[in-house]
């Protein structure tokens, strides 16, 4: 294993711990939006997809390249849209009452 890979592994392990720390504070009520938000976040592979499909030494033909970028982009945009929709619905009692009364 090269030193570069080991350094990356260090970043990975530390990020895992941050992940556990941050996620464990999310209440059950928000577990579905949490899952959906993290689902959107792994859409970060879009960065990799652009690097692989868009550079001059791209290994794929145009069709495969476009499909690759579509998959990752679908993950990003769909993920954040769905999460936003879910979260907009969460309201405390006061806000619910205010909204309903004319």
């Amino acid at each position, binding site marked *: *294993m090269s030193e*570069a*890979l080991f350094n*990356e592994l260090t*970043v*990975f392990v530390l990020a895992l711990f*941050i*992940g*556990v720390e*941050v*996620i464990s*504070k*999310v209440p*059950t*009520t*928000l*577990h*579905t*939006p949490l*899952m959906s*938000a*993290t*689902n*959107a*976040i*792994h*859409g*970060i*592979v*879009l960065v*990799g997809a*652009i*690097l*692989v*499909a*868009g*550079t*001059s030494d791209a290994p794929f033909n*145009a069709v495969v390249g476009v499909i*690759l*970028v*579509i*998959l*990752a*982009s*679908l*993950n990003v945009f*769909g*993920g954040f*849209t*769905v999460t*936003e*929709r*879910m979260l*907009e*619905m969460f*309201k*405390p009692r006061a*806000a*619910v009452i205010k909204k309903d009364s004319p």
Partner: protein
Amino acid sequence: MVGVAVNPVNVAYLVTGVLFILGLRYLSSPRTAVLGNRIAAVGMLVAIIAVLTQGIVGWPIVALGIVIGAVIGIYSGRVVKMTAMPQMVALFNGAGGGAAALVAAGELLKRVNAGASLTFDVTFTIMLTSVIGALSFAGSIIAFLKLQEVMTGRPITYPGQQIVNALILLLALTGAGFVIANVNILTWYWIALGAALILGVLFVLPIGGADMPVVISLLNSFTGLAAAATGFVLQNNVLIIAGALVGASGTLLTLLMGKAMNRSITNVLFGAFGAVKEGGPAASSTAGQNVRSVAADDVAALCAYANVVIVVPGYGMAVAQAQHSVRELADQLEKRGVEVKYAIHPVAGRMPGHMNVLLAEANVPYTALYDMDDINPEFERTDVALVIGANDVTNPAARSDKSSPIYGMPILDVDKAANIIVLKRSMKPGFAGIDNPLYDDPKTALLFGDAKKSIDAVISAVKAL
């Protein structure tokens, strides 16, 4: 001071990583959660802009791909019904996993084409990404088909299933081994990738129904790990950080749900819950012999003159899309001074927190929703427990009957309420095919029919009182 040239793109990636962490941090309260999601989205935008400065020449491919993906993603994300959310999340998850595997495949082809030497670092991380990504892609597609009810949601099992799975896993690992050893690289690569895809299909097939939240969450974690592995391949920290965050989150949620069902994750994945007794006990048992059924009018009177009513929603509420009616009924009852609370079992529904989202959609304030541990002591003081399309999570056999497959699973103590009303479509047993002695309890009355129609009937009856 001696300046070290810092690549601005890496600075942008660091900003993205920080924004993702902050975004998740803000997700810990319903008040700030919308902001959290937006912060994460801004982080994503920063990373995408940064990568576009990296010597991209295939603009038509990149632009077309992003635009098509965005249009489909935003459109389907907007129009999808709240009840169909689990399969939508599964689909997006599969797309991410597939993209990760393709990125790794592309990197391998790139290096093989260039005649570059393939070190352990390169091949190992490429295989890791490909296998996990492909597994997640295929598994998510099957999960989607099951949840969308294109195929049966019940576990699909056959003899020797686990041996077949083990052999295919072995094939995938062997292929990966040969690629890492630089033997017939491309041939073995495609074999390993194919094996991983098949394994993804086969590993989700035997899992069904109430175990789906665990699988969805696990697949989410897989795609996160695949994204992190992609980061190792591309030596890109933002992918590593984001992937690790998702991997940690998915794993944590998976373990939490396993704990809520008092089952290990291996048992969920390989136990084929509910398939064991298929078609068996329901016919022969005595359960369902002495159930008492009631009319909507009686339910209305019982609830309207109660002090406290606890609503226990389950997947049946989602199927019948009854959440709006449930909320309307609660409004009617509250007008009459009845206190209405909602008891949410950790694994009710088809994804973690499924019921919370559905009730939120119907404008039920999240402050009225209670977790299992908080609500269980309240059932003793409750006049009516209204069970809507929930079954196994209310089954008292989990407490007392050692022979029951769900023995030991923490349940909602609805049987301690003074009256129990169960809304059910028929006497068919729940997903797990297990008898529920709750229905034979003299305090229990069943209101048969579609949950939404039943509740609407109760609402009219309450109004008429």
